[in-house]
């Protein structure tokens, strides 16, 4: 099927919008630990906590998708 496609038009507009910026916002360097609920952090291995909890709901923790 041939669909109408605006790829070049959109990419052109994105470039036109961003090129004038004197600099681009940088990716922050952060530790994903800030998103871990604080009770869990108290010196526990997160994977061990996860394994415990998923067993409670009849689940199984896997380390290898295969």
């Amino acid at each position, binding site marked *: *099927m*041939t*669909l*109408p*496609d*605006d*790829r070049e*038009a*959109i*990419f052109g*507009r*994105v*470039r*036109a*919008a*961003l090129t004038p*910026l004197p600099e*681009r*916002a*940088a*990716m*922050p360097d*952060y530790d*994903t630990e*800030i*998103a871990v*609920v*604080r*009770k869990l952090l108290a010196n526990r291995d997160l994977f061990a906590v996860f394994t415990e909890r998923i067993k409670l709901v009849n689940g199984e923790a896997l380390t290898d998708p295969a």
Partner: protein
Amino acid sequence: MRFQQIDQFAAHLKADTRASVYQSTKLTHEKRTKMLFDQFADPNRMRAIAGEIKQHAIENLDTYLPAVEAKLQANGAHVHWAADGETACQQVLAIMRAHGATKMVKAKTMVSEEIELAEFLGKHGIEALETDLGEFIIQIDHDHPSHIIRPIIHKNRREVAESFEKNGLGAYNDEPEVITRRARQFLRHKYLEAQVGLTGANFVSAESGRIVLVTNEGNSRFCLAANKVHIALIGIEKIVPRDRDLALLLNLLARSGTAQQLTVYTEFISGPKSPTQPDGPEEMHVIFLDNGRTEVLATECRDILRCIRCGACLNVCPVYRQASGHAYRSVYPGPVGAVLSPLLMGDNFAEKADLPKASSLCGACQEVCPVNIPIPDMLLRLRDKAKQEHVSSPGTPPMGAWGLLASQPAAWKAALIGGKLINHIPTKMLPIPALRAWEQKRTLPAWRGGEFRKWLKQHRKEKSS
């Protein structure tokens, strides 16, 4: 006196509706705040970082868009680009026609509201059925959502029961469990009858090409489980740089929007089903939509594109609570909508230039935004934009004369003394609309212009003597 539309809408809003909206938003907001501060050491820092991640993403879309396209294609998905709603609708139609499909089931996506997809498909003989319970109710009622997360926040269960009865879904019954069960029974058949499932995406990872879908009802799963074709309709600003960033964003999203730790279902979809998977769509089409976003990207208000559509700003906004979502006349209401909706109008900005004025600039929205968008600053910018484009603003006192008066001390001091007149003349007789608007609901304090300066002179004399 001329009036602001949104203020008038609020004045005439049914007390019932206002009560529904107020109770729901207040509860969710208070739960959200308690949860975030109980569970995390520094939720405000999380919001700041999430904001930086999204700002980085949108300011580097020229890198990330081609990257996510390449990844999705490598995963076996087709990628399409739509400059506007009309094109996106045509693309969806073409995909459906290519499969001889006449029935679609769709998960909740505000982007599809934006482009009015269901109406378009309906005109072409295609049934596009909403499967999110709230959106389903909106659809059978021919209504519009009034909140980006809770589409029927303005309805109470009696109204829902009435519309179910009107639409042949059983005799009047306003028990939530009964309503839900009836919707579930109706929708089960529909999932199996449809040929195409359409979703949006909460996030798209540029690193892996995975799209993320969050629902409480699992309806997105049903939309995809029985169908051969999956169409994902996604705004170009939904890009997230890396998979690991999703950890932070997902921890903020549900807590911010519905005060849940996570929604019941979170799905990561990287492409159509692989040969070794037992089921799933065999074909996946991703349609990336511009529809005015590149124009927003070119303005100083580009930060609004960080929005992850959580609804927290709507829930805390005192103006939203008084007026409700329909007052904004837009798919995106509330604080985010007051910035995004007029900007997405492009050249027709003037039609919605009143939205940024419907705010006391209290800043509560910025304080709850999981990506730390400086919404009040953008509302102010848009007020400046409206003035520059000579959009009229009912009720706003003209400031030119004020600007002159307040930059000339002699005139100012004279006005301080002269103003004492208003203590003696009824306001009704003064040709100042702002004063009359004030006095509808408030008294005016006594004018005491010049008194402080007199006191200060006297005070200084006393001190030195």
